[in-house]
């Protein structure tokens, strides 16, 4: 042991030794700790204090943490939402071939949009005959004529007594058949849809045909998982007095996608890597 190794370690050296950060000083700390009972005792005291604090933090809160299930589902839905619009309209137009090619590209896009508009207009005229649309995201919103949403009289206490995901009400086979008939969905295509509550039971939604609609599985963005996340969020807000129950019911029954955008989707704040606020 060198002469310097005999000097007792300072508190800062002991704390850094516990961190295991490599460096010249750590060699001296290691050598000294091996030989000095007093410093080992002090080092143990620091480490025990940290361990005790860690235990206190866990004991104090972990038992009251909500289950991770709904939180995980919500994050997945938000990530899906974040991934969906990969690029803005303008960023998709690449003018790599010069201004003429760019102009031609824009003209082509305008033409495609015009054709799509005509088709959409014609399709909307046929909606009363076939309420389920045929495009990729068709049916993600219910037909309000058939499904305006119905809630039962319910107290907050009743709603908030259970976590949202535990308030599950299976739709009876008879009700499912009626919903498919109403929406004109043939039985061979019924597997493509989930008969879902517009106003979720966890928000007081009633098992009434006016509150049930065939929600398509095929939508990549606005699917049942995303709606589940919205329901969970609204339930959480209602039960923490952040949102009135009637407002939540109205929002989800009027346009659940708009409600999702309002209550779930995080604002695009630049928090990553930013300085302390």
């Amino acid at each position, binding site marked *: 042991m060198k002469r310097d190794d005999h000097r007792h370690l300072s508190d800062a050296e002991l704390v850094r030794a516990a961190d295991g950060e490599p460096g010249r000083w750590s060699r001296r700390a290691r050598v000294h700790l091996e030989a000095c009972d007093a410093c080992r005792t002090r080092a143990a005291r620091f480490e025990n*204090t*940290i361990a*005790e604090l860690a235990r206190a933090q866990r004991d104090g809160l972990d038992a009251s943490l909500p289950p991770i299930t709904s939180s*995980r589902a919500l994050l997945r839905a*938000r*990530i899906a939402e*974040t991934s969906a619009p990969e690029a803005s309209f303008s960023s998709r137009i690449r003018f790599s071939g010069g201004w003429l090619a760019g102009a031609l590209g824009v003209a082509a896009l305008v033409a495609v949009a015009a054709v799509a508009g005509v088709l959409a207009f014609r399709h909307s005229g046929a909606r009363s005959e076939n309420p389920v649309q045929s495009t990729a995201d068709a049916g993600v919103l219910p037909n309000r004529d058939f499904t305006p949403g119905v809630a039962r009289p319910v107290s907050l206490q009743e709603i908030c007594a259970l976590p949202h995901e535990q308030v599950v009400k299976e739709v009876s086979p008879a009700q499912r058949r009626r919903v498919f008939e109403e929406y004109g969905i043939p039985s061979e295509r019924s597997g493509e849809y989930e008969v879902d509550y517009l106003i979720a039971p966890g928000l007081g939604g009633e098992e009434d045909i006016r509150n049930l609609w065939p929600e398509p599985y095929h939508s990549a963005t606005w699917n049942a998982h995303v709606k589940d996340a919205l329901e969970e969020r609204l339930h959480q807000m209602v039960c923490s007095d952040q949102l009135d129950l009637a407002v939540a019911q109205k929002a989800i029954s009027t346009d659940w996608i708009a409600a999702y955008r309002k209550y779930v989707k995080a604002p695009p704040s630049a928090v990553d*890597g930013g300085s*302390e606020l």
Partner: protein
Amino acid sequence: MERPGQTSPAELACDLPLLASLPEARRGAGEIETEVMTLFEQYRAPLLRYAAAFGVPVPDAEEIVQEVFLSLYRHLRLGRSRRNLRGWIFRVAHNLTLRQRHANKRLQELVDRDSGIADLHIDPSPGPEESCADRQRQQRLLAVVRSLPDREQSCLRMRAEGLRYREIAKALGISLGSVSMHLTRSLARLIRVDGGQA
């Protein structure tokens, strides 16, 4: 000597194993989502504890954690640095926690009122398995931590969640020396108040 863009051994040690094992080439959205969800499983509880320790109620803390991992997803999708990601995660959580606390005056009042003994998140009734003395000691420790300046609290709480010096420094945007100073000072105070029991 470390060159710009080169990862030092210490920083590599701070990298998360899952991410460090993957190639640096661009990863697909699905792969990044899997990474983010894995980290979410691992760090949700520590981040909830961290936010709650600053007086943020659990529902708000959940929202903070969601925002942290959404930000992480965007961060990784943009191909930004993966170095010291745990420090990065805690940095975002720390910033959002302070913002939330600042925004919520009611909570601030509760925290101020709570400068003495009780921890808001501790069940006041002693558990059957816990000894009264043990519990009192925990409460005393938490009360002391609450009375510390924010910076010292942050260092201590992150250390208690297992973060190393470099990660804490990144999370708080301070130097290693400052982390060392804050930790040494706050730990010494804890031990003093705890009557040297720790």
